[in-house]
């Protein structure tokens, strides 16, 4: 609970750590969720656009997961 109150957006110091952070380079990541440890798609790895939402013309069903 205290972790939630003090959580802020992290930063990446690219000069101190030139390599892309490990956290952003793996497609799936293990997280301690409300139901115990679960493997989820890493939101830092990529964002999958939602088809036909918000006025965008992305067609459904044609998107291949890309890095």
């Amino acid at each position, binding site marked *: 609970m205290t972790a939630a*109150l003090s959580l802020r957006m992290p930063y990446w110091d690219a000069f101190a750590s030139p390599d892309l952070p490990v956290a952003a380079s793996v497609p799936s990541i293990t997280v301690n969720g409300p139901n115990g440890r679960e493997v989820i798609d890493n939101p*830092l790895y990529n964002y999958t656009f939602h088809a036909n939402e918000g006025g965008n013309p992305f067609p459904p069903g044609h998107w291949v997961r890309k890095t």
Partner: protein
Amino acid sequence: MRHILGLSCLAAFSLLLICTEAIAIIGILAGVNITTGERPLRRNINQLYVSGPAWDLFLLALRKFQQVNQADPLSYYQVAGKRPRPVFAKLDC
């Protein structure tokens, strides 16, 4: 005044300024010391990665954020798309 855009899934008071309705960016109020106004620091992502519950919360919140309907002005899609140009037709001022 510092403006901080955060992903906390608890009391997030952050809003956005768009053309159809003005939403003020006031930052997250959770975790701010009432008396001193002291705010939690932003941490290095490589340190947050190994920090346990905060990291789990961050990832789960970010994933939830990305799942918000793209028509919602507070969705990941629209927040990440905030830029002076080009603007989307609906947000054209």
